[in-house]
């Protein structure tokens, strides 16, 4: 079986992290975002993954070389020379996706994090016998998204309504598809949208079915949702009683600590924290709802909440970092500094407090 991951472009919404690393390689819960998807695909027997990408394919392939061998999965890139929307990349990768098997293939959006119930999706796809399956997820505020109107018992999709003003349903496109190769015949090689141009036609022929995604779903393409997504992801690890979660008297709630990270005396960590490899958390530190990337040092008595600390950064003694502060790579926050929502570009030194959310160039 094959799969296409829509990686896309610069990942500007996740800057300043994506100034250092392509978005799919930004760690989420101590693992590059794209590996969450590749591992899920591997687990259900996918043998080849195509990355639809329009930016830095070499960096991606270099990075993924190790994983190709380790996971025994083939990873290739299909590079767009111009943005082709959400459907165009499928046409571009047509030759890589089609083989003699005639099996359906997966399409995943790289910004999305969920439990990836791909096995159930294959069964669902086989059971309805249509041409395409899409995963949908229930949301509280459907008016912000494209709503999928479907027949509740069979899952047959009736239509798509973009940002509805009146309530038409609360299920939205979760960005996970399972498509028969014939779908590729419906897509031209030009910038085009799968939600607006391809799926409505399949739906009109009553060959498009939607499955409600069990468990959590989050688009983690921007920092606030990244932090929320970590909470949902760790919650699901907890439900599965994952041995990866840290425990101890200094831990509150769900926390991931890489085994190479060092935690000092008198710290209080959690809930919803991920501490990456090689990090040093000195004594008396408080961490909650945050991600601490590889190689970071958090000095004594610092307090960090609702923030992302980029690779190899340092946070000074008695510093306070909170409220969606995003530190890029190699940022150094001085002792006793307060950052309230500071978004700091890579390689900066912060010597005076940031009292209100602002961007430090």
């Amino acid at each position: 079986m094959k799969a296409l991951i829509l990686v896309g472009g610069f990942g500007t919404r996740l800057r300043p992290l994506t100034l250092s690393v392509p978005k799919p390689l930004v760690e989420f819960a101590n693992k590059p975002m794209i590996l969450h998807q590749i591992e899920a695909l591997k687990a259900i027997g996918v043998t080849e993954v195509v990355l639809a990408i329009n930016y830095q394919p070499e960096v991606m392939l270099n990075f993924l070389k190790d994983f190709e061998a380790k996971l025994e999965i083939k990873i290739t890139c299909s590079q767009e020379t111009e943005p082709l929307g959400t459907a165009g990349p499928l046409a571009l990768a047509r030759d890589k996706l089609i083989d003699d098997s005639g099996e359906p293939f997966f399409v995943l959006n790289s910004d999305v994090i969920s439990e990836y119930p791909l096995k159930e999706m294959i069964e669902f796809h086989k059971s309805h016998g249509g041409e395409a399956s899409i995963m949908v997820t229930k949301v509280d505020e459907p008016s912000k998204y494209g709503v999928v109107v479907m027949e509740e018992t069979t899952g047959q999709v009736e239509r798509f309504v973009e940002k509805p003003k009146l309530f038409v349903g609360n299920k939205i496109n979760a960005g996970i598809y399972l498509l028969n190769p014939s779908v590729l015949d419906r897509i031209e090689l030009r910038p085009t949208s799968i939600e607006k141009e391809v799926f409505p036609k399949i739906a009109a022929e009553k060959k498009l079915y939607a499955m409600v995604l069990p468990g959590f779903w989050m688009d983690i393409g921007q920092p606030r949702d990244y932090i929320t997504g970590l909470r949902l992801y760790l919650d699901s690890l907890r439900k599965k009683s994952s041995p990866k979660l840290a425990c101890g008297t200094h831990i509150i709630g769900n926390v991931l600590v890489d085994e190479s990270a060092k935690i000092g005396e008198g710290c209080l960590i959690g809930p919803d924290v991920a501490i990456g490899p090689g990090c040093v958390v000195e004594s008396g530190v408080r961490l909650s709802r945050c991600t601490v990337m590889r190689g970071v040092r958090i000095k004594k008595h610092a307090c960090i909440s609702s923030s992302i600390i980029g690779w190899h950064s340092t946070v000074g003694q008695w510093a306070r970092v909170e409220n969606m502060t995003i530190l890029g790579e190699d940022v150094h926050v001085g002792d006793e500094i307060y950052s309230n929502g500071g978004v700091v570009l890579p390689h900066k030194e912060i010597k005076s407090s940031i009292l209100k959310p602002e961007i430090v160039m």
Partner: protein
Amino acid sequence: MEITEEKVVAVILVGGPTKGTRFRPLSFNTPEPLFPLAGQPMVHHPISACKRIPNLVQVFLVGFYEEREFALYVSSVSNELRVPVRYLKEDKPHGSAGSLYYFRDKIMEESPTHIFLLNFDVCCNFPLPNMLEAHKMHGGIGTLLVIKVSAESANQFGELVADPITKELLHYTEKPETFVSDLINCGVYVFTPKIFSVIQEVFLLREDRVLLHLIMWLLDLSFRSLPSDFVRLDQDILSPLAGKKQLYTYETTDFWEQIKTPGMSIKCSALYLAQFRFTSPHLLVNGDGKRKATVVGDVYIHPSAKVHPTAKIGPNVSISANVRVAAGVRLMNCIVLDDVEIKENAVVMHAIVGWKSSLGRWSRVQADGDYNSKLGITILGESVTVEDEVVVINSIVLPNKMLNVSVQEEIIL
């Protein structure tokens, strides 16, 4: 050679509760003059300075606070400094000169040759013996302590012109609208007893005016006047007497500030702590203790306070009685009042923490440290609780409040 017995008394004007409103929320239960700067009541600094005057026989605190509010302090300071200190309560405000005049009999009881008059809200090094020497050299009724300030800030004070050679006071204007001079009145004076007859003359003039007022009222003419026994030193005495070879000036080049706001008390605390290095080094914590907290710069810690060895304190920190500072706490540029508890890893910067307040673990009480802006220093009133991890920035919190969410640039009623 004739030997005249010289005797000096000092009068410190401490004001009353109505004046103390500017010091809210710290003046609800403590008179502003007793608010601690560098660990000592504000008024203690001028009193200690008076102690250095040769032949000082008595210090009077004059104000319209209740006597009981000062009773304890007055008795302890009298013992400590071995100088009689008395509190004299006015029935109502009389103005700075009026207050002096109102208690003239008590002040003159011991027939002093010189009378110092000091405002309690002044923070300076009080070069009182030097002033007295200068005064004796100049002659006249009195000598004012003056200082040069920036031309922009001078209009908040009494601006004056002095003769550069003779130091005579040539002209005096209180808080002028247009620039007069960058030399200002520090609110510290030395007078001979003749000052009483000068004030009396103003009184008599006033009584005439009251009579005039009455006549005009009978004639149905409007006429605004102050009560006859309210005499201000600046407008009513210094202005008219300037240029008459009666008043002289003594210029200080050391520090001087007026303590008009709670925020200024942090700056003044720093100035007094720095002065302690020369006058009272025993009051400063020396950072060489092995099992003590790390200390940076000038720090005062009351002997009854408990500070954990892993805490880092300073510069400019004053910690009052029975304060408990837990492990990993960071204190900088702040005043921590009696009975406060500061829990593990909390941070306090540019702030005043009111009596009996409690700061939770990893809480943060901070401000930008701009003494001149309204919320430039964070102030927690008495018995304020800041819960774990809560951040309080550039805010004023009135007494008995519990903060469980972070606040910034707010006044919490």
